[in-house]
């Protein structure tokens, strides 16, 4: 375990920014803090960097307690959202800055600056100034400046948010490649779900200062542990129901007053008769069919199409089922497309849905 936070909290006056956050990151892992604005992810990152001290809790790097180490002696290096390149210094001087602070001798600095410029695929720009570089180039220089000092942990504070969409995707891939190549433990802060999913080994989803779930992208998407995580990382359909009876590991539940009857496969959280739960099914797990055959092994309902959207690679539908609007997404695999007004069935297997109490 390379980096560990234990019970870290931080408040600013009355506002609790970070609330009892704990997690541990393995060496070489790219770990993301994902959440909406104000969820505490940037504050947490800043505490790892040492810009703020936690009110409570401790931070360990390589088993050493660095909670109160000053900013300039922590073994972390940060890349900022607005790059924060020194405008009065050339690219060479910017990158060399950290090495100069470490008192590396001149030939060593030259060698390492050259190496890192090759790594970010921008050889030969040593004499240019930040103002002369494009946003993408500036960000790469900022990354180079951070990794050239061989930090233990690389901290990235929404580094791609200031770039346009296309550049963001390109740089995302490069960033992952570089990170894997040098095997550096990385903490990545973002509010962009796609980014977090594309880059991370594991993700911590945060809300209002608390960690809501930690897991791999697949775990978080397929098995969200609470409604917030489920709703945050993707679209889903919600069915509020009450459990009527239980048959082995399947619960039968009914919606309030709309005649809906669902089968739910029970997972780690057990259900009892009378429990109110919210069943969650993702749009891509529901199938829109003309005839259904899964009545016994899954959920199938009659529905009528009220909206059909052709998106090239996918078809998105809105259907009316038992009084609620259900969203369905299907890949365009050549099967006939349903139009508005068509009557159909929607079906999903017991494995395709989850629930929250």
């Amino acid at each position: 375990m390379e980096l560990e936070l234990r019970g870290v909290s931080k408040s600013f006056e009355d506002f609790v920014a970070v609330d009892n956050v704990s997690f541990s990151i393995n060496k070489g892992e790219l770990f993301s803090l994902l959440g909406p604005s104000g969820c505490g992810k940037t504050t947490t990152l800043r505490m790892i960097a040492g810009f703020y001290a936690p009110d409570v809790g401790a931070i360990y790097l390589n088993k050493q307690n660095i909670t109160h180490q000053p900013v300039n002696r922590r073994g972390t290096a940060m890349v900022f959202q607005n790059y924060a390149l020194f405008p009065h210094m050339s690219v060479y001087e910017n990158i060399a800055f950290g090495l100069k602070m470490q008192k590396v001798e001149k030939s060593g600095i030259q060698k390492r600056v050259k190496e890192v410029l090759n790594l970010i695929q921008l050889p030969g720009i040593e004499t240019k100034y930040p103002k002369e570089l494009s946003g993408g180039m500036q960000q790469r220089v900022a990354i180079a400046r951070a990794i050239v000092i061989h930090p233990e942990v690389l901290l990235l504070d929404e580094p791609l948010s200031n770039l346009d969409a296309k550049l963001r995707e390109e740089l995302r891939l490069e960033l992952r490649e570089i990170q894997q190549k040098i095997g550096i433990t990385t903490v990545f802060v973002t509010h962009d779900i796609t980014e977090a999913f594309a880059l991370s080994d594991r993700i911590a989803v945060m809300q209002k200062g608390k960690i809501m779930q930690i897991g791999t992208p697949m775990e978080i998407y397929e098995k969200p542990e609470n409604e917030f995580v489920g709703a945050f990382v993707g679209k889903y359909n919600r069915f509020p129901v009450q459990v009527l009876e239980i048959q082995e590991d399947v619960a039968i539940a009914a919606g309030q007053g709309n005649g809906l009857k669902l089968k739910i496969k029970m997972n780690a959280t057990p259900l009892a008769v009378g429990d109110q739960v919210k069943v969650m099914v993702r749009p891509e797990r529901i199938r829109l069919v003309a005839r259904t055959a899964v009545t016994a092994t899954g959920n199938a309902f009659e529905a009528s199409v009220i909206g059909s959207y052709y998106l090239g690679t996918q078809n998105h539908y809105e259907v009316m089922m038992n009084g609620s609007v259900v969203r369905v997404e299907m890949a365009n695999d050549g099967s006939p497309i349903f139009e508005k007004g068509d009557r159909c069935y929607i079906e999903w297997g017991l494995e395709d849905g989850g629930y929250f109490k």
Partner: protein
Amino acid sequence: MDNNAVTGRVSRKKISWTPYVLVAPLFVLMLAFLIIPLMNTLYISFAHYVAPAVYDTSAITMENYLKFFNTPNYITTLVRTVRISVLCTLFCLLLGYPAAYYMSKLSGKKQQIYLLVYLAPWLINVVVKAFGWTLLLSSNGIINDLLLYLHIIDRPLQMLFTEGSITVGIIHGCLIFAVLPIYTSIKAIDPHLSYAAANLGATPSQIFFKITLPLSRMGILAGGLIVFAVTMASYTTPVLLGGGRNRVLSFLVYEQSNRLMNWPMGAAIALVLVIIGVVLVAAIQKFFEANRRRRDLME
């Protein structure tokens, strides 16, 4: 605007009059009350003095300038004026920078109060300010009284009517001119830069000397030039706090023009003052420009 496609005519860019209209009033003012009088002064400086308030412009003569540069007393005064200006500039920058730096770290209300303290001297008339210093510095003033009372000295110190008292009086009034531009340039520095520098291993003093100071250079230049120019032209403070033995060039101009009514001489000395001032300011600026390694610095 461009109707090429329709009529096939060559289109002309419409001249925008707005900038000229906006600048015109100030330009007219400057022209009427600065440029033209200055040109007039230049003209008179080449005239021949006949009698008080009477001069002959029929022939161009250099006699006033020659007289100026041949009079040791006048040269001493010129050197004194430049010396005081340079000293005031240096002190205002040395004292003003830390003040501006501190102010930039304050927030909201505290900052406003702090600013008010530095602006306060300007709420008082310059003559009243000078008399305030007189009360403090004169032989029977407050400081001497206190030192005598405490038996630290047994004879009053001569503090007034020296170059020192002029310098102190001017610094008192000019400090704000150094503080404000420096403050502005420090405030304009991206706060993330010091975070980044610290993160890369810099101590607070390294951050100051490698990041903050270089990036506030333009503020230092602006503040320094303003203090220098204001001090060169200063009249009331040097006269009231310097006395007859420590005259500055502006006083000479007054003496020649208003007392002796020798307008050509007064004009010549005034022009010497203006030109020395302009040349020095330009030289300092050029020096700063040459030190910029590239165009388009952040500021």
